[in-house]
């Protein structure tokens, strides 16, 4: 294959990889995207796990996508629509009632005693939106040697906070490093509301709500939010693929990379598992940083300090996914406040429950009482009439339990999941036609994600912004000429989809 000077290889076709490829192609680069699965989309791809039953991507929350960064790709022309009505998260309580929480805009329905407190809390978060959105829609601030422009921008943002008053700044500086347990405990009295606000921020971390700085994660989760694509992350991936193809990206599906080719001047291309070599002077990897730097680079390519930096990036998976093919829609044990249809359910009822559920992971034990993030969709033919797909996300699942992930461990996890499910949807077990359980090791194997981590790296304060994945690999560069990192393991990354790939692409494009 001829080496075009402006060829860029992209590894991985999840939302980050697709967005990067489309961005580069539209900038005039020749882009070859390499994906080991037969279909594009990576962890965000829709998959048919049972005839007629499709699960739309592993992850449920599409409300943190970086719409501003995606805008230039004009995805509406490729089938993407944005939800007009926000997603309602339903939070049931013991007595058959439930309240709903929508997050963009922030609204609480069905919990009148907390509505004032919620408004106050919401107003606080709203003041942080410009700062957080700005931070997450741009490369991370370069703190060791900021350019004058960046310094000015940072100062401007910081001073704009000061415009809300000294008290606000003091509150922010006090709240951000605190635990969600303390902050939400202060703001609200309803335990299930406290849990509903904390739970999404804990997904992909190894913490419970008592951990310091979880308030910062809660703030980021809420302040970085915007509208959601209709059809979630799977729909976003589909539209991105269409846009990429329309821009001329060459897709090489069903092909796994074996190693990145280098010489003394930097990237030369990639060698695939079947031996084929594709040459290019630039490579953007949307595979997680550890896989990219430690498995695809020849041994001893990285100097010890960079190798340590790569190894230190923590990617211990903590999430499992269970897809259920149901013969009928769940019969919920609760009623929603306005009688609206149920799309998303959170089964956590208190911060205490979240905390207890976060303990077993630390010891490589399987959670007995997990809390669940549920997403319901309707199945399509050839599935039976009225059939449904329920996707379950379980936080706090160890990547390497003591006994390994054998049948016994899987059964144990399923038992805990179904116990939690039966509490909100009695009788659901009897309606299960088929299931697919993906524990972290399955996720690792299937999607090539180190540690089976759904966000390509743990979410923690020291693994965000300029240190995601490491200061040594700040801003998508790797110190190896031509090699760029643009996975969810870079900034903004995590659940803030569609940012890292595009920002990495811009770093190449210039």
């Amino acid at each position, binding site marked *: 294959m001829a080496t075009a000077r402006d060829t860029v290889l992209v590894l991985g076709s999840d939302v980050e990889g697709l967005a990067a490829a489309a961005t580069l192609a539209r900038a005039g680069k020749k882009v070859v995207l390499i994906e080991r699965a037969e279909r594009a989309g990576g962890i965000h791809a829709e998959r048919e796990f049972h005839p007629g039953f499709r699960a739309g991507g592993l992850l449920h929350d599409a409300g943190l996508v970086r719409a501003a960064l995606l805008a230039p790709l004009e995805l509406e022309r490729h089938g993407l629509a944005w939800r007009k009505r926000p997603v309602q998260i339903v939070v049931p309580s013991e007595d058959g009632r439930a309240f709903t929480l929508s997050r963009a805009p922030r609204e609480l329905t069905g919990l009148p005693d907390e509505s004032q407190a919620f408004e106050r809390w919401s107003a606080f978060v709203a003041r942080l939106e410009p700062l957080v959105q700005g931070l997450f829609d741009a490369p991370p601030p370069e703190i060791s040697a900021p350019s004058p422009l960046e310094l000015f921008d940072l100062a401007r943002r910081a001073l704009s906070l000061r415009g809300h008053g000294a*008290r606000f*700044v*003091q509150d922010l500086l006090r709240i951000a490093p605190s635990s969600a347990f303390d902050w939400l405990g202060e703001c609200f009295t309803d335990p299930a509301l406290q849990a509903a606000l904390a739970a999404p921020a804990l997904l992909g971390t190894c913490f419970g709500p*008592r951990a*310091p700085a979880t308030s910062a994660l809660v703030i980021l989760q809420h302040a970085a939010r915007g509208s959601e694509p209709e059809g979630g992350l799977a729909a976003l991936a589909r539209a991105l693929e269409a846009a990429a193809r329309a821009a001329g990206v060459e897709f090489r599906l069903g092909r796994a990379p074996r190693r990145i080719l280098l010489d003394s001047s930097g990237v030369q291309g990639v060698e695939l598992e079947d031996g084929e070599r594709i040459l290019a002077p630039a490579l953007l990897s949307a595979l997680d940083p550890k896989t990219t730097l430690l498995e695809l680079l020849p041994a001893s390519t990285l100097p010890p300090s960079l190798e340590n930096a790569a190894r*230190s990036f923590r990617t211990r998976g903590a999430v499992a996914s269970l897809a259920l093919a149901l013969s009928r829609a769940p019969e919920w044990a609760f009623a929603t406040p306005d009688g609206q249809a149920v799309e998303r359910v959170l089964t956590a009822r208190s911060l205490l429950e979240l905390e207890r559920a976060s303990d077993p992971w630390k010891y490589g034990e399987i959670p007995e009482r997990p809390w669940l993030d549920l997403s319901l969709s309707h199945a399509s033919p050839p599935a039976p009439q009225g059939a449904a797909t329920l996707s379950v996300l379980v936080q706090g699942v160890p990547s390497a339990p003591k006994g390994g992930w054998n049948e016994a461990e899987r059964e144990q996890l399923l038992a805990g999941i179904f116990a939690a499910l039966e509490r909100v949807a009695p009788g659901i077990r009897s309606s299960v036609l088929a299931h697919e359980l993906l524990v972290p090791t399955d996720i690792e194997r299937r999607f090539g994600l180190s540690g089976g981590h759904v966000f390509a790296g743990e979410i*923690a*304060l020291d693994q965000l912004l300029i240190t995601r994945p490491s200061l040594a690999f700040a801003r998508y560069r790797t110190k190896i000429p031509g090699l760029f990192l643009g996975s969810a393991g870079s900034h903004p990354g995590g659940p803030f989809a569609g940012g890292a790939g595009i920002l990495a692409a811009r770093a190449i494009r210039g």
Partner: protein
Amino acid sequence: MASPRTSFWDAIVVGGGHNGLVCAAYLAKSGRKVLVLERRHVLGGAAVSEEIFPGFTYSVCSYVVSLLRPWIIRELELARFGLELIPLEASFLPLPDGRSLLRGSDAAQTLEEVSRFSRRDAETMPEFARAMSKIGQFVKPIIDSPAPDPASLAPRELLALLRLGRHFADASPDEMELRLKLLSMSAVDFLDEWFESDVLKGPMSVSGIIGTFLGVRSPGTAYVLLHHYMGEIDGAFRSWGFSKGGTGGVSRAIANAAQHHGAEMRTEAPVERILVADGRAAGVVLASGEEIRARAVVSGCDPRRTFLSFVGAEHLPDDFVADIRRYRYRGSSGKVNLALDRLPEFACRPGEGPHLRGDIAIAPGVDYLERAYDDAKYGTFSRRPYINVVIPSTVDPSVAPPGKHVMSCFVQYAPYEIAEGPERWPEKREAFGDAVVDTLAEYVPNLRESILHRQVLSPWDLEQEFGLAEGNIFHGELTLDQLSFLRPAAGFARYRTPLERLWLAGSGAHPGGGIMGAPGALCAKAMLQARAV
């Protein structure tokens, strides 16, 4: 001397804990008339030595010294006034399987001991120590100066912030990354990057959680790890020591210095409230009804007692009261003091030796420590606790009769908020003491029969007897949201309080707890600079 009612003091210090005493000493040294009022029969607060059992001197609460600022020792000439510090020789870790680890000042010997568990870790240790030391140098000026004020827009403050920012950023990328990690990571995650052996990570990570209600896997504990690495005694960085005569010796030396400069001390003089007149602190009222007036009042007590008990919410701004009410204590530790009729014998390393003359940690691995924390989160004391043991009588014969010993045990976790409610702690006290003794007996088989006397202090006891809110040994949790400019409340982190002429000098002020003396000294300096006395 004139009667108290007519004499006029420059400053009254409420609470004779070590910070109050340091503040008094500095003020007296500058020629001010200072009166220290202490509720208990002995000065020192939680830095006290008491003969609870005849012939045996217990360092009842705090038991080792390290962070006492060298410049304070120098400026107050504490050695001249009786301060004598004996460095701890070693850190000993006995293990349930009969092995053990001894780390000390002899680098070669430490290397050899660690190598038995991990050759790689042994080789990494010097590099780690160097890195910690370097960061310690970076952190020291922050601890030894008043807190910045990021919410202010005053040019002087912005300049100070800029300097702080420069100070922080003045680092190679590697150092910068290390600093960022240290501020945000858990002790275990941080140590995982350096070491592989669980045996080493246990005792090393535990220094990150002393006095906090956090676990070794909690974010933010790597920073506190550094706090404990910053000990300096006799110029040797990172060493901890005993005070001759028990920890009370430190307080006595400071009190002696203060008295030498003319300060007066009264014990068994409990203050009931701070006198407020014309919106200012004007003196104090003792429980006896006696009123004593002063130009300024300094509190060495914790913020809750100071503002909500002594002053009263009605004299303070609402925001401030909310902040003080919200300020967290969450005592997490207890103390067990034992008088022994013989030297304890560890089955894994029998006989005498340097391993008994330093600190001994019951911390056999990270999971053990984390499970101890889990217990506390749900309202019980740890069934298998972390225990930090010292036997000061091995190097200081003044604290026990010949051949007999004092065993001082700091225990985590013992949560103030037990499920039954903190006031029920007295019912649980002995069971707690038993859990500690039972754990120790696994390592020292003949322990029980050698115990002549046992004193058990739960967080409730620390609160009731020593005035430490919720038994928190640092006058408030040392977490990022309660440090520096936020300690004890935003806008009031420089020893001034919203009540004019009232100052805060205890560990509830910057830079926080440990026997540092820094809050007391910095408060005095601030008062003198402001000509408040």
